[in-house]
């Protein structure tokens, strides 16, 4: 009896001793290996949306928070967070945030699949991705424009870009400007434009060829006539395409004459639908429910072995 009690006490005491020893080691380690962490990083990280989209150029939200705390990064880089997030960050750091505009993706091509000349015959038997189709020039006539195989759609985690009739189309209600589509596009025809207004004027063409060459492959592409640039001082011709000066772009800026002069469909407004656009489609009925199709849930290039 006594032996058993002794064994019990011995065991308990040994464990207690071990626990104390360990606690001492941990306590020492906590002091010796202490790393000074900026306490603001935690709060900054909490203020960020935690999407880890990488749109700011840093690996994840935490790294961006560290860069902000160290004063190495602008406060307005977080696209998902937007202006309110930038204000929060500024409040934590006790600084002012200079207002900036949200950047949104713009596809610089306006040709739907049936407009791409010659009308593509189903001859392309290669891999159904833009990166692969961009390697062969027989896919479509225009060597600059949208291929419509959806590399940008697969890159977008916000479901904000879709191929509509073979043309990548941004859904500006969902786009947060993370730049993933612009980086995925092998033809570099998606760029980020500061949206100073709800709807922005953009050049919806990337073809730098001469006029006749463009006409041979596209009914809507820019033919470098430069009439638009002559009519507006906010536009300039650069290497066969008009460039809009977004630094001085103002909502009330008048591009009407330029748009009127454009004989193609290269100057278009993009953005969230305004009241005028909503009026146009007011009498159209929307389908009650959209059924998920196989191709919307499974990437058709991924399953094949």
């Amino acid at each position: 009896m006594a032996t058993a009690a002794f064994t019990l006490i011995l065991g308990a005491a040994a464990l207690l001793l071990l626990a104390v020893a360990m606690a001492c080691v941990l306590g020492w380690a906590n002091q010796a290996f202490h790393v000074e962490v900026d306490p603001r990083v935690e709060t900054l990280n909490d203020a960020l949306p935690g999407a880890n989209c990488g749109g700011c150029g840093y690996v994840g939200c935490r790294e961006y928070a560290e860069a902000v705390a160290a004063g190495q990064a602008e406060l307005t880089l977080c696209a998902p967070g937007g202006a309110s997030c930038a204000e929060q960050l500024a409040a934590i750091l006790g600084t002012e945030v200079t207002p900036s505009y949200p950047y949104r993706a713009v596809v610089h091509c306006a040709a739907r699949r049936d407009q791409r000349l010659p009308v593509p015959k189903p001859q392309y038997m290669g891999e159904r991705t833009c990166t692969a189709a961009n390697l062969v020039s027989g896919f479509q006539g225009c060597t600059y424009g949208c291929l419509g195989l959806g590399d940008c759609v697969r890159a977008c985690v916000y479901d904000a870009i879709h191929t509509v009739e073979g043309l990548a189309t941004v859904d500006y209600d969902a786009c947060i400007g993370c730049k993933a589509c612009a980086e995925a596009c092998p033809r570099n025809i998606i760029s980020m434009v500061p949206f100073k207004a709800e709807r922005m004027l953009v050049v919806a063409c990337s073809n730098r060829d001469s006029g006749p060459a463009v006409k041979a492959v596209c009914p809507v592409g820019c033919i470098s006539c430069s009439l638009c640039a002559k009519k507006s001082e906010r536009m300039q011709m650069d290497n066969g395409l008009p460039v809009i000066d977004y630094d001085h772009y103002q909502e009330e800026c008048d591009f009407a004459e330029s748009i009127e002069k454009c004989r193609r469909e290269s100057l278009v407004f993009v953005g969230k639908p305004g009241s005028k656009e909503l009026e146009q489609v007011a009498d159209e009925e929307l389908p009650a429910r959209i059924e998920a199709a196989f191709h919307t849930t499974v990437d058709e290039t991924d399953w094949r072995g």
Partner: protein
Amino acid sequence: MSWFGWWSGSQNSFFGGLHPPESKERTAEVPIEVIPPPTEVRIALLQHLGAACELLVKPRAKVQWGEVIGRSDQFISAPVHASLAGTAMRATVATLPNGRHVSVVPIQAAESQPLAGSALYDALLGGTWPLDDAEQFRPHEIMDAAREAGLVGMGGAAFPTFVKLRRQEDQPVDTVLINGCECEPCLTADYRLMVEAPQPIVAGALLVRHALGAQRVIVCVEDNKPLAVRALRELEKAGVEVLVLKTKYPQGGERQLVKAATGRVMPGGGLPVRVGVAVLNVATVAALAAAVYRGRPLTHRVVSVSGGGIRQPKNLLAPVGTSYRELIRWCGGLTPDAARVIAGGPMMGFSIAADDEVAEKLPTPITKGTSGITVLTQQEVQRAEQTACLRCGRCVDVCPMQLVPTRLALAARAKQRSLLERYHIASCVECGCCAYACPASIPLVQLIRVGKIQFQNS
């Protein structure tokens, strides 16, 4: 590996490869024809591997035949010359078959050209060439002449030639291989050159040997070209050797040629100079001879226009910058069942038009590296629907680089950079053997090229 090496290295050959239908009979016996000067040539300012040239002439300037119109101060580059006398127009942008957008200078041809027809042929390829005169030049003079003449590898890769002709003390070259293995089906431009003009080839080969201080110069020809072998053997006493190799695709690939001709294995990612070898195409050395002995820059080249979709397949001596449309028109145009125009041969070429309507309009200019135009018929481009990989391993059997193409393609699809690296994606030479052999019609080369893009970007 030693057993492998013994098995694959015997009989002047290399591992892997295959033997697609040669289809050379259409143009093999057609003599080189000089096309009349086209009304316009469009000279691309980037026709080679390396830095693009800067334009030297103003719009509306008169240019002479052979005048330098573009030059770069970068080391790896080659100047471009006007291939016709005429008027330079404003530079525009054109899309080359490889998908690159480059600036091009259109030159409107003048009424009278200094040389045309047979006189042009004689000036560039004909007549007698000095076969024992290479020693009169200093090695660097030959290199400078190659550089000034804008010489690039005319087999397709278009690597500036003068870089290969540079003597390097730490990497001496003992063997010069002259590549006459035109292994690509349909193409006969090099073959006709060897048959009709062996003299400038041998003269150029001896210049290369002298420039590099090499001991041996070997002209390598596949055994399906007996006439070329005979023509070159007659000049063997000038100091070149003629080596007959097995007919196999891709025998003309640099690595495969070095292995088959010398038994040396080039290290991965290295140039032939690492094993003491220099490899130059027959057309390149003929152009070198023309540059050194006759002062002619590289303005014309032989292009074979062939394939089932061409009415009269021909070998043409055409100015660089001639449009595909012009060449196709000179060959009688396309047949009704023509389906695809390919820049180069069917194995490694780039498809440039999927439609005969477009092909009629093709303003794409030929470059210094364009060795042929192949037009395939509807029947020839027909491919079975792509199915899943069978794991049959045929792509592995035929890969001359001893890679595993199916794994590479899978890794490219899955965007796995580490796998791409593990399977040595950078070693792929894109010869097309794997895709040709694949019974499941998987576009292996295309996927591997996608993988290379991913590999470079990440």
